[in-house]
């Protein structure tokens, strides 16, 4: 039983039957399996690990590839799947984004046959969980300056350094870790859980993405076999291209959060009565807020749909992906804020989904390139002038 979802511009007609069915399936699944419990999970700060097998059964893990018998879903179809997951909660969408775009994608793209055979089937079945370690405590927006080092020794690599804010870190069976080699070039490594010298601990005290695992990874003289290196990954452009994949999905996912907030606000505004027996939706000031949300969501839907079709044709650029990630997260963040205002005091309690989305979206706005970083990427594209470094400083 699928719920209504805002579609003012008949984007529905731009989808294939398979895309619609994939979306509706995930929407029904989220409604049945996630919504009854998500407030409790977020409150307890618990990732619903038991759902991984169910998401794998739906074949959400590895959805867009055809290798290893994977389903080969279209990019738009995949976007819709993520939209529905994040309509439920950003934590679920984050899990799937990491597993697909940040773990399976690099292994499929730069991994050896042996690495692919070893990990892709079990990651797709949800029997193995992956994480992606790029960010460090001192290097977030500027990962190129990372400190983590991989030193070549006779029989392998020795990894030293710290990674921070790593989604799935503590529960991961395999970590895709980015480190500089002896020549200073960024290389990728598959580090298995339990490797001596590798430890993960939880980031405590999160108010956001509480139903997701976020961890710190540390490597101290962590000896890896030669075969741990992703043989074809060379340079910072590799982790950045993983981010482009993940950002594409976030551009869709964040709109799912925005849709959840719009529908929550609309329902509330139609039923909450104040001043003279009329619902608050009868006030122009409330309507203006609902219209703002619907208008921005509609523009966002057309943007991500077009981006998806370009991606299917192999024509999407990282600049377009940045623009869409930036726009959707901004829209979702504003929608959460407006929905919270409309909910009044009820907007701060977990009887309504609003505060949870509002807090979640702060992470989504920041990770995978902050809003500012995407502004600078677009700014560089438009002007030809990179503005990442403060003008007073030269090269780092």
């Amino acid at each position, binding site marked *: 039983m*699928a719920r209504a979802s805002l579609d003012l511009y008949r984007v529905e007609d731009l989808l294939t*039957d*398979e895309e619609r069915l*994939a979306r509706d*399936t995930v929407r029904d699944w989220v409604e049945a399996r996630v919504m009854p419990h998500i407030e409790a999970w977020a409150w307890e700060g618990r990732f619903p690990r038991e759902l991984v097998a169910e998401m794998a059964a*739906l*074949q959400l893990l590895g959805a867009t590839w055809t290798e290893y018998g994977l*389903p080969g879903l279209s990019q738009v179809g995949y976007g819709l799947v993520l939209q529905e997951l994040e309509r439920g909660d950003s934590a679920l969408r984050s899990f799937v984004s990491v597993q697909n775009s940040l773990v399976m994608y690099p292994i499929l793209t730069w991994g050896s046959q042996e690495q692919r055979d070893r990990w892709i089937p079990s990651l797709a079945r949800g029997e193995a969980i992956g994480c992606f370690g790029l960010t460090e405590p001192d290097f977030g927006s500027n990962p190129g300056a990372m400190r983590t080092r991989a030193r070549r020794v006779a029989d392998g690599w020795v990894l030293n350094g710290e990674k921070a804010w790593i989604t799935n870190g503590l529960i991961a069976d395999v970590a895709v870790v980015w480190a500089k080699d002896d020549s200073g070039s960024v290389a990728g490594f598959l580090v298995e859980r339990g490797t001596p010298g590798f430890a993960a601990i939880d980031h405590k005290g999160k108010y956001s993405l509480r139903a997701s695992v976020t961890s710190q990874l540390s490597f101290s003289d962590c000896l890896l076999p030669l075969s741990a290196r992703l043989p074809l990954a060379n340079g910072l452009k590799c982790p950045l291209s993983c981010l482009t994949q993940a950002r594409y999905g976030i551009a869709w996912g964040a709109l799912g959060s925005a849709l959840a907030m719009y529908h929550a606000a609309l329902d509330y505004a139609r039923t909450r009565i104040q001043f003279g027996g009329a619902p608050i939706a009868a006030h122009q000031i409330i309507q203006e807020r609902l219209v703002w949300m619907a208008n921005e969501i509609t523009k966002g839907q057309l943007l991500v749909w077009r981006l998806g079709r370009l991606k299917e044709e192999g024509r999407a650029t990282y600049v377009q992906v940045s623009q869409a990630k930036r726009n959707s997260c901004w829209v979702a963040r504003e929608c959460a804020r407006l929905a919270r205002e409309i909910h009044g005091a009820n907007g701060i309690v977990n009887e309504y989904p609003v505060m949870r989305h509002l807090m979640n979206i702060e992470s989504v706005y920041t990770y995978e390139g902050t809003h500012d970083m995407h502004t600078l990427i677009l700014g560089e594209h438009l002007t030809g002038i990179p503005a990442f470094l403060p003008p007073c400083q030269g090269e780092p």
Partner: protein
Amino acid sequence: MNLCVLTAHVPDTASVIKVGAAGNRIDETGLKWIISPYDEYAMEEALKLKEARGGTVTYITYGPARAEAGLRECLARGGDAAVHVKGGEATFGDALAVARVLAAAVRKTGTFDLILVGVKGVGSDNGLVGAMVAELLDIPHVAGVTKLEVGEGSLTAHREIEGGAEVVTAPLPCCITAQKGLNEPRYPSLKGIMAAKKIPIQALSVADLGLDEGTLAGAEAGCRWRALSLPPAKSGGTIIPGEEDPAGAARQLATLLREQAKAI
């Protein structure tokens, strides 16, 4: 084991239903269509039987062009073949006409050990088609099945009856109608969804079955929908303030329940 599932495409149960201009049909604009929820139990049971014992699952529907999407949705969960008898506008809501078309389609499609149907189509809620198809095919049927065991050449079916349960055995071939509780329908997987579009759907007209839809809807019609109306809007309800005088409020409530609502 050759299994056949008869399925109908119905408006999403979450839809807001409006009466159409003609007054005897619902207004279909903007409606979202789904597999009738009881058919999902029939489908799941067929897929489980196929998984356990081998064989094939064939879906048959009778409906307008849009019903093809319903068949694709069935195929996305599993199954081998699908038949779409196009039409159904004129015979809409006439269970006997629908059953005649479906029985003829079953005969034309193959021989089946078991035919599974939803206990009723959500929306018209007649609960007649499955039993009628069985009668027209001259095979036994068990209605409203909540548990099914299929043996060699026979089945044992549990059905809920007023105040108890009934256990029925019947020889195969047989027709059962599926009731809520029979199983937990699966979700289609993405691979199933992608594979479903590659399975050809056999399209038939009512005439291909040797029947005439005009006659079915005219001279031979079992029933016609004359008029549809929505239930009256619920009134706002009555609030009896109780803080000042709870005992008085309770008395007033009892009076209203007895005299106005006639509930006690």
